[in-house]
């Protein structure tokens, strides 16, 4: 029996998995950096005399 040629779908499937997970994990780094910048800025403001 001939094995159907479905490699393309395999590639598509794993492309989705790695891309989406990759973007999501990258978002952790990006969000962390943004929040740390915000925190630094806010702490600066806090130090200033009111």
């Amino acid at each position, binding site marked *: 029996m001939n094995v*159907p040629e479905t490699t393309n*779908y*395999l590639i*598509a*499937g794993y492309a989705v*998995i790695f891309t989406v997970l990759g973007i*999501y994990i990258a978002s952790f780094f990006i*969000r962390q950096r943004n929040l740390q910048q915000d*925190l630094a800025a*806010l702490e600066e403001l806090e130090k200033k005399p009111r």
Partner: protein
Amino acid sequence: MTPKPRLLAVLDTVCIVLFLIAVGLVFFYAPLERSMGQVQRVFYFHVATAWVGMLGFMVAAGVGVVYLRTNHSLWDIVGLAAIEISLVFFFVAIVTGSIWARPAWNTWWTWDTRLTTAAIVELIYAAYWMLRQGIEDAEKRARFGAVYAILACISVPITFASIRLLRTIHPVVVGGGDPNAEGGFSMTPAMRVTFFYSLIVFSILFVDMLWHRIRLGQLAEKVEQLKLKLSA
């Protein structure tokens, strides 16, 4: 943000290694399945990501109950983290399921029990997120999030049961629920190893990502509190 705990750093490394091994198993160890060809390999990560997708609302409901009783914001952070992670993983599961279905059963979507329930749970996650988006006050946001997570968690098993009941009376012609039984492939031992290994790796990955996401949430909370304090 507090510096990364030693244990988390270790966990990160462990995760990466285990994940790479899983990929290796999927592509090189698991045998080629004859009826579907190469695309069958998608199945291993498809089920694993779906499993992580299911964890979200269960964790969120559990910590939701704890939050309502203790009012400690950490539990809210955990709940949000769990749902966000599961939202992403379930999305991957649904899309890979669709990609697998196309060559296997010649359709992009089947209204079988599991896939339909997955779509509904994904919508619930989206609804949870939209609910939180619409609330300014942090405490109210946490409270409502917990309430919705609990209600959703109770409803999902009942939804699953009713859809399954629907399918047994009107069986779906194309596509089925159980990836093991349907599509006609039974698992050889090598496949089984890859399958369970993937499940375990993704579970550990969930814990690792949850921890990271919780830390992120704590940082966000600190920023928000500082903002409120300074604008007061």
